[in-house]
């Protein structure tokens, strides 16, 4: 029977990404002729909600913008408020923030591993990765009181000091994860069934990547060494030693290798943070009743999330409320400019594989 031209919806619930997003696919047999991204299933109006709240009230919403990795949102929000309000953060709070960011990056990479392996049917890897991620969530629970949404990085510092012996427990988890990661290499990264499915699929050209503003692993897998932690160091990243892993191929497999190498770098950073953790205050002196007043000014802050550059624009108008806040995550450009082009010519069975490798998170698009 000859191949027929059909149109199907891939999503909004599917194994490719965390969150709800749909892709309309025009297919000729198994091959994709045209892909159109549809969003709108997850709109919660964060940016507008924040305009109606005071700074302290808005602080609890921002972490909900990205479920797999809420901490870059908290750090961005805190950094923007501090810059506008002129608050100086202590060195200890900065180190604790870096620890939070790196633990969260590790947790997000485990979640990616679960999704990426699940998208080609390697479910054992996914279950193991979720179990190992839980060890990091246990640490978050002990430190912040929350497993997923931490609401911990507060403008001016962090909310709680480290519990007694906490750094030792982080070290223990890292030692365990180091041994586990070797196992993940065997069962997932070097597994022929993943490697042969991922090599040569979803190839991105370096020139095009720079031109369109792709970020994170998508850019680094094309051989471009770009990372906010090195290019525009924030917190104490300039005091820590780490490398930016890159690959040349620009395909799904190259992005997987970059992510896997970044997990080692995160562990390396965390070990340095544990060693160098200074003593001191965790919170700067805050305004009375924590009523921050932001002057008539604006700022642009950015951090490197597990999926790439994550930026916030914030403007104050002299009142207690934030006049405008805009979230610019990596997903917007990856889900529209990149994904729609990348899927043309790909096989239907590769859609989830490609989507997951781009690290698309729909709540960021519909913030």
């Amino acid at each position, binding site marked *: 029977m000859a191949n027929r031209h059909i149109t199907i919806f891939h999503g909004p619930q599917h194994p490719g990404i965390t969150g709800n997003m749909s892709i309309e696919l025009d297919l000729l047999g198994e091959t994709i002729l045209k892909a159109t991204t549809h969003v709108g299933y997850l709109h919660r109006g964060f940016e507008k909600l924040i305009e109606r*709240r005071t700074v*302290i*009230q*808005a*602080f*609890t*919403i921002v972490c909900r913008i990205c479920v797999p990795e809420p901490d870059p949102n908290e750090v961005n929000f805190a950094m923007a408020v501090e810059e506008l309000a002129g608050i100086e953060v202590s060195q200890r709070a900065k180190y604790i923030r870096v620890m939070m960011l790196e633990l969260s990056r590790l947790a997000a990479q485990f979640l990616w591993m679960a999704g990426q392996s699940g998208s080609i049917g390697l479910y*054992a890897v996914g279950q*193991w990765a979720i*179990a190992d991620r*839980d060890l990091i969530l*246990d640490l978050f*629970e*002990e*430190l*912040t*009181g*929350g497993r997923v949404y931490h*609401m911990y990085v507060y403008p001016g510092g962090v*909310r*709680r000091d480290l*519990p007694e012996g906490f750094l030792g427990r982080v070290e223990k988890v890292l030692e365990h994860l180091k041994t586990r990661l070797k*196992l993940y*290499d*065997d*069962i*997932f990264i*070097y*597994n*022929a*069934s993943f*490697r*042969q*499915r991922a090599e040569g699929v979803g190839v991105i050209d370096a020139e095009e990547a720079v031109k369109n503003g792709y970020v994170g692993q998508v850019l680094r897998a094309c051989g471009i060494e770009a990372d906010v932690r090195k290019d525009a160091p924030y917190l104490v990243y300039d005091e820590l030693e780490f490398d930016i892993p890159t690959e040349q191929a620009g395909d799904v497999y190259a992005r997987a290798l970059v992510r896997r190498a970044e997990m080692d770098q995160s562990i390396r950073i965390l070990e340095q943070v544990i060693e160098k953790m200074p003593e001191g205050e965790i919170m700067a002196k805050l305004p009375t*009743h*924590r009523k921050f007043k932001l002057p008539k000014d604006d700022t642009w802050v950015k951090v490197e999330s597990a999926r790439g550059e994550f930026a916030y624009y914030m403007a104050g108008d002299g009142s207690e409320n934030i006049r405008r806040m805009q979230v610019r995550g990596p997903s917007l450009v990856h889900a529209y400019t990149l994904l729609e082009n990348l899927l043309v010519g790909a*096989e239907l069975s590769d859609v989830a594989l490609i989507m997951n490798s781009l690290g698309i998170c729909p709540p960021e698009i519909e913030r």
Partner: protein
Amino acid sequence: MKWKVDIGGTLSPIGILGAFFEKPNTIAYPAVKKETARSYRGFHTNTLDDCIGCANCQDVCMNDAIDMIKVDKEYNPKNSSQCIPRIDYGRCCWCSLCTDVCPPSSLKLEEEYLGITKYATDFLYMPKNK
């Protein structure tokens, strides 16, 4: 897609079989319960001997989850409003800002977090006096 011969890549996942000889990651809940961290954000508690009824918690709550209710039991003589907070767990997001801004630190979150009820009105929760 052509399948290339990759002996190393085909044999490397065999290590997964070692998991048969390891302990499971899961726990036999409810026979075995996982200990909750001391800082966990569970139900609210309010020490009535300390609560001054200032309504700072109500003021800071972005979800309007806190109502100040006339107290009908013994309370702190310094509680000039004679009101204490009641939490609507249909609205609460457990951000714990209310405990952060509590001047006498009487409002706290405990580790207990399991609540089962048949009645929707039970979502209006009066913090335990602790």
